[in-house]
């Protein structure tokens, strides 16, 4: 038995205290009760069954470690690595703003354990591999880019855009990297790859080896800076998260270049291009949100937008999606530490995908693909979005001028979009960064006719806003407005009139004219973000 100083965990003591132990972190189903695509969020507890593996149980155990009633032993050490740190519990938790961050608490615990000599044997060999071979898989470092073959000579040594391949796609899911390279070339993107690419250190951070990860970070950032790279593109969300979130924290400085996942890059790049993608046959597909891309970096819509670009495919969603999507089981060091557990978790996700009737399960992560593919056992085709696009790429389409000018009907939703753009004072009081969806619906069927979202870029009396079609990543609220109500709202001369009418449609809805609001954050959080001012003026609260 050993005494351990929990200096990292202690930083979270306030949150450990505030956990109300309600149990939502593993047992909640919020699909019917609060319209959230959430069901039994803890993917690990769903397999292992016991309370010790969900956030509530973990917090109880950690509190007992802190108060000395429980001592560190091998059982604790193993248990500390059973969490995929996926963050689904944090998204579910309403106790504090943003939810109690159990993944970070678990990582803090791992740092404390590692720093005081509690180490898992398996991790040491991975650590050694990274030190000697620059990858955790124990593969020869000189063969890292060999999968590119002659293609490598066609990739310039310098460019403003760099593609960071990552260890998993270099050695295990080469098809994703090949597809990304092919696609970027097809699209005419000038990019480079690091000839001496090394492990980003993600796995080291997940295990708790911060110092070792820092040296990886320093080397890679220095290399990109020396090359004058302005944007680094990733196909691995694990590497992406590490660069974007962990590096600035462990290095204590900004990186000096932009980081993007390929799906974000493409979503933006393809917007003003007329590139066609065509599936060989009509197919139903579904999409699995990788935790590091979704919950950790809030990228939910970009992959869906580019999947929808492919003609012939129908995207259907699983029961749990976006910030409530179940983890595939591979993250947080679980795949390397407990491979059987990772596979069992992935089997549950595969079952969810099969329930949709989809023939292809798409993701945007080599680690998810690897784990899901092993679990799927050929029951469903697993494909990365990069592979899908490379496979269905047709080319740039030359636009033919239409012979007859089509008259586009201006819908109430479009009118409201224009109206809001011209009446930005409606958004006075909202903090910068607020993001909310509008769904303009057919009053009878309640089917959405237009979806758009507003992002507040600058707050003020006349705030600067951006209105975009589609659905926001991680919105604060969703406002549902019937078309007849939208028609009347756009007639309002000023904010007060708009607010009053908005309130009437909410408080005194009729069959045709109504407004409903779905909150994606607690009212407390929304008030802090400035939503209270309009809500009060509208008589909502």
């Amino acid at each position: 038995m050993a005494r351990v100083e929990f200096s990292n965990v202690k930083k979270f003591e306030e949150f450990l205290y505030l956990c109300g132990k309600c149990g939502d972190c593993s047992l909640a189903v919020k699909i019917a009760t609060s319209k959230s695509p959430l069901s039994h969020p803890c993917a690990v507890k769903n397999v292992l069954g016991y309370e010790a593996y969900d956030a509530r149980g973990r917090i109880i155990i950690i509190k007992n470690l802190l108060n000395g009633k429980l001592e560190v032993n091998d059982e604790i050490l193993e248990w500390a690595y059973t969490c995929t740190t996926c963050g689904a519990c944090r998204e579910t938790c309403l106790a504090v703003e943003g939810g109690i961050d159990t993944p970070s608490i678990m990582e803090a615990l791992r740092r404390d354990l590692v720093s005081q000599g509690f180490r898992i044997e398996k991790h040491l060999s991975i650590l050694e591999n990274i030190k000697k071979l620059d990858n955790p898989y124990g593969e020869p470092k000189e063969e890292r880019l060999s999968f590119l073959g002659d293609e490598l000579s066609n990739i310039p040594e310098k460019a403003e855009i760099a593609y960071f391949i990552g260890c998993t796609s270099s050695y295990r899911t080469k098809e994703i990297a090949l597809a990304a390279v092919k696609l970027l070339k097809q699209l005419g993107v000038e990019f480079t790859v690091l000839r001496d690419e090394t492990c980003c250190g993600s796995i080291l951070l997940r295990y708790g080896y911060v110092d070792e990860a820092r040296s990886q970070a320093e080397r890679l950032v220095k290399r990109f800076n020396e090359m004058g790279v302005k944007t680094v593109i990733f196909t691995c969300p694990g590497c992406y998260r590490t660069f974007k979130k962990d590096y600035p924290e462990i290095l204590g400085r900004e990186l000096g270049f932009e980081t993007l996942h390929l799906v974000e890059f493409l979503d933006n790049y393809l917007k003003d291009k007329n590139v066609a993608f065509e599936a060989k046959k009509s197919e139903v597909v579904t999409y699995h949100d990788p935790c590091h891309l979704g919950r950790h970096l809030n990228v939910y819509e970009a992959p869906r937008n580019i999947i929808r670009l492919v003609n012939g495919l129908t995207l259907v969603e699983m029961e749990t999606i976006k910030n409530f999507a179940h983890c595939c089981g591979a993250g947080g060091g679980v795949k390397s530490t407990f491979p059987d557990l990772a596979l069992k978790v992935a089997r549950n996700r595969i079952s969810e995908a099969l329930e949709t009737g989809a023939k292809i399960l798409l993701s945007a992560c080599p680690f998810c693909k690897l784990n899901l593919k092993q679990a799927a056992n050929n029951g469903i085709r697993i494909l990365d979005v990069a592979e899908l696009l490379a496979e269905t790429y047709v080319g740039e389409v030359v636009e033919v001028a239409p012979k007859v000018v089509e008259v586009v009907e201006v819908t109430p939703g479009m009118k409201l979009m224009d109206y809001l753009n011209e009446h930005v004072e409606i958004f006075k009081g909202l903090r910068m960064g607020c993001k909310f969806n509008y769904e303009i619906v057919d009053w009878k069927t309640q089917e959405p006719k237009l979806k758009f979202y507003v992002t507040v870029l600058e707050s003020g009396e006349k705030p600067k806003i951006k209105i975009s079609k589609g659905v926001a990543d991680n919105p604060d609220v969703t406002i549902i407005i019937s078309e007849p109500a939208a028609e009347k709202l756009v007639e309002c001369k000023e904010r007060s009139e708009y607010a009053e009418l908005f309130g009437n449609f909410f408080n005194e809805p009729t069959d045709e004219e109504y407004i409903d609001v779905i909150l994606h954050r607690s009212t407390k959080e929304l008030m802090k973000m400035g939503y209270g001012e309009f809500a009060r003026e509208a008589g909502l609260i």
Partner: protein
Amino acid sequence: MSEGTIEPIVEEIESIVGSENVSLSKIIRLSYSEDASPFHARIPGLIVRPAETLEVSQILRLANEYLVPVVPAGGRSGICGACLPRVPNAIVLDLTRMDNIVEVDEDSQTVTVQAGLRWAELIYKLSKLGYKVGFRGPFGGNAGTVGGSLSSNSVGCGSAKWGSSGDSVVSLEVVLPTGEILRTGSGWNPLAKKFARYATFNDLTGLFIGDHGILGVKTEATLKIYPLPEGRVFGDFGFNSVEAASKAMYEIQKRKLAEELVLMADRHTVSSYALQLAEKYPEVESVLAVIIEEASEEIAEAKKKLVERIVRECGGFFIGTFFSRLHWGEMFNVVQPLFEEGYWYNTCHLRPITMFPELVRKAHEIFKKYGVDKDPEITWVASALGIDRCHCTGWITLFLKNPEKKHILEKTWSDLRKVIIETGGVPYWAGLLWEEYVLPRVHYGFFDLLKKIKRTLDPNNILHPLVFGL
């Protein structure tokens, strides 16, 4: 009380439920030593996760043979410590694996579920079939199970119209402490459907409702179901006193007009939920949120008109629909955002609506006595929920932000509980929250009969020993 040890029966239990569903691990056992209450349990000796009634029966037979205590537990979201073991080395039966819908019987409009099914999941699964339950579950219904609620008399969503959890029950399947399996209501006849609670004999169902799991382990429950409503309307009403708001609540409840009625008793509570609203209506002391659900829009609208008339007559006025819509639309998610105010300490109980203002007055006196009314590190929420006929919950919940002030909180909390009992309140559950306050006052005849029943059904005192002092 039973006093056997666990080790000799671990292997036998593994053969019943499978080794992956039995754990002796210290950290796993420790994680079952708390629930959502501030109380701590004796660390269980063994965690077992059965999936079937027969497994529960076999485990109880073994426990009797080896004299090992057994504590049934559901989602452990309760706030009175009902499922926490009081004796060392108990087997905790984690019943959350028993979460299937056994049958939806459209002929008799009932659903039979395994006791470990969570309310939110039941609502979801029923809604897909076009049905709802009346009582929807406690406010912790995301994790709260059907069996857990029935064992602790819980009240919550839908209680204004449909009463407490037990009022929805038609029949129970219970494994008795000695392992026999009992079916209550019309379920006594193996050839009959489980459609009626009061049939042929005594209401044995009631014997097990609110028993905290000391008389048997509930394994299945048959509940009444109803078609999803077509009419749903909302209304929030402001009042300048808790007396006026309570009067309106009473009049609405007397006429059974609402599906759900929530009263926020004082400005402090209204401000906790929405500061903006409190600022907008400086004269508003209390807010009554009304949710009406009916088979058609016409009926719902007609009831709304009646509610509005009652509110006017009681001096209240319409202030919007936000609270009621939020409350209903965010079912089971309204309490958790308050955790940010500090760790929570509850005083959940029942009392006639007419006696609610008295409680609020006395609570304010207690807050003043200990300086809580001026202490930002100890705060409170005072609210009431309409239940069944004309009674309500008295919910004065304290939140302790600074653990160093626990001594002040403890005194305030204790005084509140004393006052609640002294003013004729009755807790709906007991648990570690209430036992020391209620047991000294239980009428001898009542308690004596309870003891005799317990001794008869559980001769070795296997099930949840020491609960109710038994």
